[in-house]
């Protein structure tokens, strides 16, 4: 089971918080803050899991997700999407686009950890 998580998020404080949580839980955390080249970065890093913010500079998380699902090698990559926008429409769109888990900020730390563990355990069983 891989332990590589890639976090794509533009808020420095949130990056720091998630990195702290996951690192402490034993994950290998990479980060990236720009949406425009996110897909290439993901392809290059080939993580086991991607945590993707919805509102990113350059390209929105939704677009990135769709882009990922169009790439066969990445079609099954678990993606945990985070959003600070409180719209249920976003959840629907994300589910249609093939998101693995959708979470609204602010989240509790335990939620994030559980979600990451579940997603990776699920992926490794397949």
């Amino acid at each position: 089971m891989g332990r590589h998580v890639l976090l794509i998020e533009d808020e420095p404080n949130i990056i720091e918080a998630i990195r702290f949580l996951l690192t402490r839980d034993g994950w290998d955390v990479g980060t990236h803050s720009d949406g425009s080249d996110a897909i290439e970065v993901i392809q290059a890093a080939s993580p086991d899991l991607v945590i993707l913010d919805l509102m990113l500079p350059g390209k929105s998380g939704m677009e990135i997700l769709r882009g990922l699902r169009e790439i066969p090698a990445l079609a099954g990559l678990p993606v945990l999407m985070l959003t600070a926008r409180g719209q249920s429409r976003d959840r629907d769109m994300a589910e249609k686009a093939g998101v693995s888990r959708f979470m609204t900020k602010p989240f509790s730390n335990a939620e994030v950890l559980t979600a990451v563990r579940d997603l990776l355990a699920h992926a490794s069983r397949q």
Partner: protein
Amino acid sequence: MASLNLLVLVCLGYVVMLFIVAFVADRLAARGRSRWLHTPLIYTLSLSIYCTAWTFYGAVGYATRSGLEFVTIYLGPTLVMVGWWWGLRKLVRIGRSQRVTSIADLISSRYGKSNSLAICVTLLAVIGVTPYIALQLQSITLSFSIFAEADPGSVYSDGASVFYVASGLAVFAILFGTRNLDANERHHGVVTAVALEAIVKLLALLAVGAFVVWELAGGIGPVMAQIDASEIGRWNVASGRWITFTFLSAAAFVCLPRMFQVLVVENSDERHLRTAAWAFPLYLFLMSLFVIPIAVVGLDLMPEGANPDLFVLTVPLSQGREGLAMLSFLGGFSSATSMVIVAAMALSTMVSNHVVMPIWLSWHGEGASVSGDVRNVVLLARRISIAGVLALGYFYYRLSGGGDALVSIGLIAFAGIAQILPALVGGLFWRGATRTGALVGLVLGFAVWLYTLLLPELGGNFLSDSVIRDGPFGIGWLRPLAMFGADDLDPVVHSVMWSLLLNAAGFCIVSLVTFPSPLERLQAAQFVNVFDHSVAPRGWTGSIGQSEDLMIMSQRILGAQQAQDLFHREAEAQGQRGYLPEPSPAFLTRLERELSGSVGAATAHAMIGQIVGGSSVSVEDLLAVADESAQLLEYSGKLEAKSAELSKTARQLREANAKLTQLSVQKDAFLSQVSHELRTPMTSISAFSEILRDTDGLGEADKTHYATIIHDEALRLTRLLNDLLDLSVLESGQVSLNMRSGQLFEVLDRAEAAALAGSERPLLVRRQRDEEQFALHTDLDRLAQVFINLIANAQKYCNADHPELRIKVRAVSDRLLVDFVDNGSGIPPDSRAVIFEKFTRVSGEKAGGAGLGLAISREIMQRLDGNVSYLPGKSGGAFRVMLPLGARVAAQ
């Protein structure tokens, strides 16, 4: 000798009696007990206003001057009454069916209700009748002066008496001519009084005649001998003058406004004409019976130079028969007053209906025509017109100086009035006569009459002698008294011939070449065929075979179901077995009524007429159909306008809806932005608080670091909330401005200090303090807030290695411009349009702001009557704050 005072008393008494008679007759008519007023006798007697003072006194004078020619004055009306009573009957029938109020109204009505024609006829009548009224005033004054001469003790002045006479007549005419507004313009009181006066003048003339024949001359035989011996008796007939004068008096009898008034307007029953046809000629015969004897005896009896126009009065006076003279005077007085009163009434009706009211209505607009005060305006207009007509007569009398000049005016007036004849007769009998033709004829005839008769008669003031002698500009064939070289004609004959010839020719030719309007044609048909139009409602008869056709037509108009129901009900009511009823007259009438509800009365009538064939469809019917179609077209036009209006409303609704939708989208976007901006710091706070709480063994440095993050994010939240509240207050317009006076440089100092306080990135602010010396009167705190935002933006976003901000101040006309230009790369063109929108941050920038700063600045500047804008084309990011300089001036 009868004193003048007695005469005045008798006159006043006579007038009072007339008042009473008129009053009683009016009262009776008002109570509906006017049957005895509507007798052929009263009608005939009222026609006697034809015999004015000019005929009462003047006929004798005429006879002494021109012999038997005076007979023409009586001959014309007699010929009309006897030979043309059928024409008069037509006139009366039209007058009643069209509710005609005057001759002007009749002409106007015949030619498509043209008011220009009415005005033309009114003018003609006023010009033609005014001298005539002056003549009456003169005759009354003259007869007064005869008595005054005979009464040495009297203080008498012609001028004063004519004024009182004119005023008195005006009062009488106003009192009885305008007491009420009858739709038919009938005046029972006046007519009855006029009839009474007719008797008085006839009796007076007969009495004087009898006196002359049997007392002075000694019987019929001696009088005849005396007549034979005198010049007057010679049968000296100038046929041209005879024919002309007879024709003129005949024309005047029909066309004179006062004659039209009694003949047509006051006529209550056209059968009266039958009586009048013989009775009025008889009256005229009696009036003329003793003219020659009085003239002959008077010439014999009276001293040389005595005015023969007054023989009727002076002959009895010279014989000491004061009672008879008094009666004679009353006769003359009656002739004059009845003529003046009726003429003034008739003219006032024309003037007020065709001149005053159209002007008044056009001033007051259409709305006035439904309000009650029109009635009062009409009455007032009538009264003023009566006073005006009499005033005209009075002034004409004073200007012409009275005397002989007036005597010949009677025939001249006749000739003027006769110009109406072609349009009148043509209108009655010729359907092709048109409005333009009538107008051309009238104007031509009137002009020729004016030029060839009235102006030469009035003398040198109007036409110079050279014009009369040589023609205008020396054009010989245009000489007023010898037009087209007709040299040796009597002036009146000459004028009547040319004016009527040109009038009639113009009328006919123009009528032939012009095309009448539908209304004209309709009126023409109603006038010319007045006897064909039965007043009784038209009934239908039809046969059963036509029921099916009727059914088909009705279905088309009423709709299948409704038509079938209607027919079925009717069939049941008639006891028929099928669904088709018998087309009985009752059913057809009902059907016509049903149809007319949908297609209009005329169309319904024409349609049923087509099927049942009971009557042919007349031109009138077709015109009515055309009118209805026009109304339908107008109606559908209105519907179209309505539907255009509706679709406009729909479009506006759509636009409003789209705007609302857009607003709703904007609101959603705003809320989701606010949510994002709130949740983001909240997430950090939440995450790090949990970390601090749940993680054992954190180092002090880490603890401090995480606590600092929590603190920063909390501050960020506070800032955001402050900004949101600020913006919401500004946008709702509920912000209260704190207007104070201050110096621009002080505000900039404060803003610079506040913006740069505690910042880590260095920013060099360059200012020219000497150009910042502007006194301001504005909300200094809000202005500082804008400046702080702009400086802080530069400090945050300027991407130069050594960030610099230049603040430049200058005044341009009435505005103060404050530019903030930094040396960074500026704002990308595609972002410039949105930087003032809420939550807009130029992509890639993360500087802790919520993106509300510029939106707030924009709102603030709007409240301060200025603005803030991005300045493209500068080297770096550049913003301009514009303030109205009026604020500065106000502060000084």
